[in-house]
């Protein structure tokens, strides 16, 4: 089972996303994360979907996605060089001593404190998923109140682009 990041360009139409998501549950594929928004061409949406599967299933997933009428193009970007990014907002308990500890940890991971309360900090971090996982781990004893992640979005590292 390998991590796969699948990029989907599809019509920005009602129902299109539910068909993509439905396909995954219907055929028993997993979705680890899902990220969707319109592109610079507002008639199109770009989806980045992360899943874990073997090669055969990955091939089926891309083919099945391509078969959906609303889907324009599909690319498994993990097949080539690519960039992946994810953004995380994380609210942690931070009182007394802990406040400097959290701040220091955040600095190491190039995070930003975006909201401060007397008992908590909210931090923003971006990077690839392992970095964000690493940050949560690095927090150690500090108690995490809330984690919000955007899910991975990714792009291939070449001039080739997913477009009409």
């Amino acid at each position, binding site marked *: 089972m390998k991590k796969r990041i699948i990029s989907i360009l599809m019509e920005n139409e009602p129902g299109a996303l539910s068909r993509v998501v439905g396909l995954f549950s219907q055929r028993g594929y997993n979705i680890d994360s899902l990220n969707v928004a319109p592109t610079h061409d507002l008639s199109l949406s770009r989806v980045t979907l992360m899943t874990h599967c073997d090669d055969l299933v990955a091939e089926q997933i891309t083919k099945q996605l391509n078969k959906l009428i*609303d889907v*324009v193009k599909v690319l498994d970007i993990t097949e080539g060089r690519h960039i992946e990014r994810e953004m995380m907002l994380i609210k942690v308990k931070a009182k007394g001593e802990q406040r400097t500890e959290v701040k220091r940890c955040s600095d190491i991971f190039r995070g930003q404190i975006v909201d401060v309360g007397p008992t908590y900090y909210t931090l923003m971090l971006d990077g690839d998923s392992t970095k964000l996982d690493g940050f949560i781990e690095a927090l150690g004893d500090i108690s995490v109140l809330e984690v919000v992640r955007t899910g991975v979005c990714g792009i291939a590292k070449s001039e080739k682009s997913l477009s009409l």
Partner: protein
Amino acid sequence: MTEMLSGGDALIRALKDEGVELVFGYPGGAALHIYDAIFRQKDIEHILVRHEQAATHAADGYARTSGKVGTVIVTSGPGATNAITGIATAYMDSIPMVVISGQVPSSKIGEDAFQETDMVGVSRPVVKHSFLVQCAEDIPMIIKKAYYIARSGRPGPVVVDIPKDITSPHEKFAYSYPETIDIRSYQPVKKGHAGQIRKAMKQLLAAKRPVIYIGGGAILGNASEVIRKLVDELGYPVTNTLMGLGAYPGTAEKNLGMLGMHGTYESNMAMHHADLILVLGARLDDRTTNDTKKYCPDATIIHVDIDPTTISKTVQIDIPIVGPLDEVVNGMLEYLEQNEKRADPDALKTWWDQCNQWRQQHGIFKRPNHAPSKGELIKPQDVIKTLYKVTHGEAVITSDVGQHQMFAAQYYHFDWPRQWINSGGLGTMGFGLPSAMGAVFADRDTPVACVTGEGSIQMCIQELSTCSQYHLPVKIINLNNQALGMVKQWQDMNYEGRYSQSLYEESLPDFVKLAEAYGHVGIKVTRYEDLEEKMEEAFAMKDRLVFMDIYVDPTEHVYPMLVPEGSMRDMWVSKTERT
């Protein structure tokens, strides 16, 4: 000149402009504007069924027989959900169909209004695509797209859900029907890859034990003609799936018959021992492969299909060719024209000798796997043989699901495509009678027989009323074994004969009286000696529906049968013999 039309009128006009002549449907609140538009026109004939499931099966039977897109109109809520079984049936067998469903008014969607069901949501996993119409002006374009999507590429059902306000007679717009269509996100393949075809042909000609394996895609893709030429040119043994019966003549010498769960011994043996299998328009599902880990161990597999997802879905394919079947096979024929090389004749002869030996050993026509019929003992297999004889092999045969379906598939030789209409993928009991109605509408000149069982026929029995209203002379051949025979067979084989819920006690209706109650003719047959004569009698009543209730041996099983978790050569060939 543009005309001002309401949404309801525009819908019916768009259907006409699309070339639709016939729709099957059932009215209700959310579809009433549409039904009023139907009332005020003469171009499209509407057939009122007795249950929405039957509307979809009838449209499906019409599509399978004619090759055209079937059309259904139903109302919202229960009308729409009743249609789902038929939509799923069509989806599994890739049948082109457009289902128009009424929906509650736009302003009420999401309020749990009376008869509201999210039809687009409910049908999503069983449609090729669906549309929720959001304004009347979109109707012509959506109808154009719906039919194009339904029939092109790998065909399938398309749902068009239309809220009631959109068909309102009070709002009109300038109607025009689009002449062409281009959907940027949907471009079905038009041609197979020339390099792949060449590569496949080299392998095909180097084979020593080849099999040509024909699926339902050959019928959907109108490829029978070119496939026949290819087989003639190569001289290889042919096998068909349940869905592919008729794509290549059933009576042809080169046809080893159906493969799979209840396929012939010779077909399944040939598959297992082949060194090359050319799959033409099939999806290699579990009923045709048996255990995929043990599947055809020596074979290089070439797979031609229009749908890339069928490639390597269940079995790893060596040479895939994605494209329309007729076009790809034509490419193969061109290759043969330009290249002299043919398969090694000695090897091919040895292979044919082997196949013919299998035929002699356990071929169902060479060596029957059941006792002969006599007196009160009517073997279901013999009923199908008699049906073949009485109809001269020229009827359109629809079937339901169960033992009778397998007997029909095994014993009626289908010589041309679209002659055999059955629910292969979903296995929907209740499909037989309504699909036969659709077949009659598609082809008025050919007799249509529905081979069914007393279980299946009761799942859409209400359609006897529709047949009466429209004078549909279907011949119902009820193989009455007084049981859910196929279930019972599995219980015999795997559950030590514990017949859990597969018997009806004394509750079966008198089918002769039932047929008569609907204004039809009923004939009961209990003696083998009467069978042929009574069947002749039934088919002589050309303009009447005749319900033949034939009491067959309730203990009969369907053989051959693949042994679970085995390879394709692991079969029961009769109740007592296993390979």
